[in-house]
């Protein structure tokens, strides 16, 4: 069981916890880049999903873009973006932007799909009553549709977050920061402890992210917003 002991040794080695290129730094890089990617993806996909779900227009276009976004391999995205951004900004263009773009593209489909399906899946009777009461369209969206669809939307964001955290490691192949560096370096140096240490850290972070979002979702539901008005079938068909 030398791999296990090596991993434990590596993780408990104080040298790994201080200095440049050490665990805290990589952890922060990883979390930071993941967070930024997620925020950008949310900023793009959430409004789009809300608009498409509420107006029920543009579904086809959104579906096509989602399919494309899902299909393109992340490594390929990094590979395509890198020469372009490297030319623009030699500093960040190498280490940050390619991975960032790839992660944003990765995260948009789950957020978009879930948001659109969640909003569109709200009981039509509920929406109609709201309109009949004189609410304007934005009010209907904010006061009725979003609260009812909240759990589905958050599930989409959760899915995106965990995927980002796990796939962020790819950036390390191209010199990006983050926990993936331990994997790449470990492979190059044939250091099992480092590889599996990195694995443990990434998996741990991914599970923590998942747990954090689940807590947020539970809190949102617990506030009494879990309406019986959600169309259960629409919500359940969306991958979480």
């Amino acid at each position: 069981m030398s791999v296990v002991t090596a991993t434990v040794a590596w993780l408990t080695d104080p040298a790994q916890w201080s200095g440049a290129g050490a665990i805290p730094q990589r952890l922060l890089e990883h979390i930071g880049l993941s967070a930024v990617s997620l925020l950008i993806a949310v900023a793009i996909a959430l409004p789009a999903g809300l608009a498409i779900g509420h107006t029920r227009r543009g579904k086809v276009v959104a579906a096509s873009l989602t399919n494309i976004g899902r299909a393109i391999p992340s490594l390929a995205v990094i590979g395509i973006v890198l020469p372009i951004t490297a030319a623009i900004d030699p500093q960040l263009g190498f280490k940050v932007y390619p991975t960032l773009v790839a992660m944003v593209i990765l995260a948009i489909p789950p957020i978009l799909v879930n948001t659109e399906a969640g909003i569109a899946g709200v009981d039509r009777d509920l929406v109609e009553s709201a309109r009949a009461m004189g609410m304007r369209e934005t009010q209907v969206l904010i006061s009725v549709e979003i609260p009812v669809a909240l759990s589905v939307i958050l599930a989409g964001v959760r899915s995106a977050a965990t995927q980002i955290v796990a796939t962020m490691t790819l950036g390390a192949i191209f010199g990006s920061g983050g926990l993936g560096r331990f994997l790449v370096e470990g492979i190059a140096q044939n250091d099992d402890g480092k590889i599996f240490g990195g694995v443990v850290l990434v998996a741990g972070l991914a599970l923590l992210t998942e747990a954090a979002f689940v807590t947020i979702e539970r809190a949102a539901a617990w506030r009494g917003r879990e309406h019986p008005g959600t169309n259960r079938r629409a919500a359940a068909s969306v991958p979480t």
Partner: protein
Amino acid sequence: MDTSWILAHLDELGLRTIQHLGLAFLAVGSGFVLSMGLSVLAVRVRPALAPIIALSGILYTIPSLALFAALVPVTGLSILTAEVPLVLYTLLIFVRNIVAGLDGVPGDVLEAADAMGYSRRTRLLSVELPLALPLIVAGLRLASVSTIGLVTISGILGDRFGGLGFFIFEGYRHAFPTEILAGAVPSAVLALSVDRLLVGAGARLTPWSVGSVAR
């Protein structure tokens, strides 16, 4: 963009594409067969479902890079090291979709099938699986596309692997953008083409959507 390089390496590009498809289909095929068995088990033996889904969920959070690297001490730099992670990743997608598909068969259809004298096996083959087909095909689509992506990453294992991903790694090593793109663009196109193909195949396999008449 150095087009002369591309032209000079056309045959290698071709070979790598074939390798790419080969690695992908091997993984998807094995994963599908394995998942089918696991799914049927999970549907029959309800308690088994939760652990199976949980296990595959955990696997999914392990970065592919790590899984490839993790197997190196075990299986060296053999094809197993490349294939096993690919197969494992397809498990979550397949099991979740196949189980959802089988669960989605309406209860009255199952009851009618039983009442008419279908045996359990015939019922599974003639009624449940055909009706689960849309979700199974969706799973196939997702698994194929993600596996094609993951094959590129297997390039980390060295020159013998990676399919088109090989060019991405090499291009980066030699700071040669053309080579990077020569690997990245075709792999993206490959993934998109397979996606489209499976959508079409899926539509043709399910002619019973509303309003249709058998041809």
